[in-house]
């Protein structure tokens, strides 16, 4: 059994906005969500990169304590966007709790804020140690905390898939959710990811010399995907969710269909856990086209992973050229607006692509002033471009050698 899978609701908390209108405005106006790194009282003064893609606006969560008690900051983002998609979907409470709705949701490493609080006990007097480790600290910090706080809050009894593959976390969530529905295991899935403000992630990439450090005084000028002046990634925070549904049942209930997921691929480089791998990435892009049953020429737009690291952007450019040839699809590096939201980037970039599909424009790569010679072969978007995206590709690659590619079709361009 192979069933069609559609996206019927989406919501994203991003450094460039939470409200859809704010996000679209930021994309149209070229507004960056990268801000100075906040003082965390621990690692901050040792980190060379002084920038972070920051969610700095208030969010009115309104969660009852009954739910809050098992939630770290990462689960707040997750439950908020999950709440949004369920509200927007109009799905009945009976369906939500029927076992036919599942959750595919993850984060890079649970809640580092809570983990840090646990670590503090190591530096306290012995007697205070045990009582200061709260009973709920594990539930707040465990790697599947986002997925199961969502199931708990909404009484969801279907499958749980808690991907945790760094930068491909939420693209895997969508891909695995798509396959779960396509092959009949569930009728709908809430899919996405979240990651909270965390300086330990910055410290890791900083030590690997992968973080941007040259634009500390002008945060909005970094990251710079594909630009010759790029100097690394900018860590960011956020959350995003999409609701996937089986097409026929979504159509029957009159759901608004934003997009169709038409293909997904996920593979591994089978070797180095850090370096980007041309062969592995190229294979992923081809596998996704094969899964969708479309030709490279059918794709109008690529949301590149494009973290603005020195080699990552070059390897991705070569892979796109190898698959799509000359005069390929429009390419934008959406991380240029907000930095790298880690486990969340796949779902946020999918949602931004859906917004651009709906609005009929393609946002340019921000800060792309002088294209690196080695990335010049792509069809870079340099200014806001009025163009339809009938089919978009969302590419993400992670530490551990994991690669993903999602292909989505505009809901308006679907054969219904």
């Amino acid at each position, binding site marked *: 059994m192979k069933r069609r899978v559609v996206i019927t609701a989406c919501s994203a908390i991003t450094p460039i906005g939470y409200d859809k209108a704010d996000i679209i405005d930021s994309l149209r106006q070229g507004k960056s969500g990268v801000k100075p790194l906040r003082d965390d009282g621990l690692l901050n003064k040792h980190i060379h990169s002084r920038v972070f893609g920051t969610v700095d606006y208030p969010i009115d969560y309104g969660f009852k304590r009954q739910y809050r*008690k098992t939630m770290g900051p990462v689960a707040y983002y997750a439950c908020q966007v999950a709440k949004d998609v369920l509200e927007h979907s109009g799905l009945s409470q009976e369906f939500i709790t029927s076992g036919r709705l599942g959750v595919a949701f993850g984060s890079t490493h649970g809640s580092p804020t809570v983990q840090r609080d646990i670590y503090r006990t190591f530096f306290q007097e012995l007697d205070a140690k045990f*009582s200061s480790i*709260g009973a709920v600290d594990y539930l707040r910090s465990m790697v599947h905390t986002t997925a199961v706080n969502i199931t708990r809050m909404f009484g969801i009894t279907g499958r749980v898939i808690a991907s945790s593959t760094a930068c491909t976390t939420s693209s895997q969530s969508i891909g695995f959710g798509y396959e779960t529905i396509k092959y009949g295991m569930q009728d709908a899935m809430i899919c996405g990811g979240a990651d909270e403000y965390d300086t330990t992630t910055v410290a890791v990439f900083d030590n690997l010399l992968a973080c941007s450090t040259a634009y500390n005084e002008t945060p909005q000028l970094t990251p710079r995907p594909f630009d010759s002046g790029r100097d690394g990634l900018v860590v960011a925070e956020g959350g995003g969710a999409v609701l996937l549904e089986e097409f026929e049942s979504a159509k029957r209930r009159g759901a608004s269909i934003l997009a169709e997921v038409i293909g997904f691929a996920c593979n591994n480089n089978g070797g180095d856990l850090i370096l980007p791998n041309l062969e592995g990435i190229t294979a992923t892009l081809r596998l996704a086209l094969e899964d969708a049953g479309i030709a490279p020429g059918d794709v109008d737009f690529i949301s590149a992973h494009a973290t603005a690291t020195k080699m990552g952007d070059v390897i991705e450019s070569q892979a796109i050229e190898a698959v799509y040839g000359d005069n390929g699809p429009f390419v934008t590096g959406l991380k240029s607006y907000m930095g790298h939201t880690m486990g969340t980037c796949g779902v946020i970039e999918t949602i931004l692509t859906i917004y651009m599909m709906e609005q009929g424009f393609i946002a340019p790569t921000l800060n792309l002033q002088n294209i690196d010679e080695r990335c010049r072969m792509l069809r870079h978007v340099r200014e806001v471009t009025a163009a339809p995206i009938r089919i978009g590709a969302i590419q993400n690659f992670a530490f551990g050698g994991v690669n993903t590619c999602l292909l989505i079709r505009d809901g308006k361009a679907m054969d219904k």
Partner: protein
Amino acid sequence: MKRDVLQEKILTILTDDFEFEQPELSDNLRDDHGFDSIDAIELLGKIELLLDFTLTREEKEKAMGIRTINDILDYIETIASSRDT
């Protein structure tokens, strides 16, 4: 610690940390305030801090029979008096 002082401190914890609304001493913790096993463990940690001693595993297991706020006060008094002797 006298019972009225203890009562005030426990009611403050239940109101501030567990967000109980207008708690009464005879209230059933679970039925009236949604208090569950996770909350019970969390409350024991707060009781340890309040009384400045560490509860033994046996003492903690006895707390699982607590049903009302009055039961909490009785439990603490029993533990405290056993420590005094």
